[in-house]
């Protein structure tokens, strides 16, 4: 079965992104497929590559990155949510004349169309919010 996982909470603000990460891992452990993980609203903060939590604490950005790389997952962040929160890849940073971007692969900036596509093509949608 194919899952779309929607993350609407920011790391270190609510438990939403940690819950979503545990759920995503369990989906794969149970032998199901993750069609896409979509980060929306404050969820886009998970894509911030500059997050630098203490080394003995969970690093949610790194946890998502590893999960995606090891399992070839799509991590899509909503462009409208991202830009107004200062979450930009290098292309957007250049476009808006900012000194640096903070989003790199496997996180991809895209639009709400990817959320709609996910709800159509995945068998189940599970949303985690703050």
């Amino acid at each position, binding site marked *: 079965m194919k899952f779309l996982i929607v993350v609407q909470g920011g790391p270190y603000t609510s438990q939403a992104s940690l*819950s979503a990460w*545990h759920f995503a891992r369990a989906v794969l452990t*149970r032998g199901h497929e993750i069609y896409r993980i979509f980060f929306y609203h404050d969820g886009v903060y998970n894509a911030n590559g500059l997050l630098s939590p203490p080394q003995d604490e969970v690093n949610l950005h790194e946890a998502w990155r590893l999960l995606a790389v090891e399992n070839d997952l799509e991590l899509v962040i909503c462009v409208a949510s991202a830009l107004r929160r200062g979450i930009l890849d290098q292309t957007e940073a250049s476009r808006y004349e900012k000194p640096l971007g903070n989003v790199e692969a496997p996180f991809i900036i895209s639009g709400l169309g990817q959320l709609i596509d996910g709800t159509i093509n995945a068998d189940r*949608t*599970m*949303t985690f919010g*703050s």
Partner: protein
Amino acid sequence: MILHTLNKSPDHPALNRCAGFISDGDCLILIEDGVYCAATNDSSTLNNLLLREIPVFCLQADVEARGLLNRLNPAVQLIDYEGFVTLSTEQTKSKRWG
């Protein structure tokens, strides 16, 4: 049939809203601070759901993290994340309350 997820403690209106919406054949999983809704003697709303034979589950990791393991309504079933995934495959849709 809908899997309802709820992540707010009973002092938040989410539980009442969910209870007014939930239908026979649906089930409810309490996660994060939502597990406080299943603490004993805490919620007549939850008891009403159980009387309606709505299956109510609690995510065990969140129960343990809040020290509630020995204080839960015995009619509530504990599950892990894999059980959560199984529930989501058994129900046709999901709805988040919070």
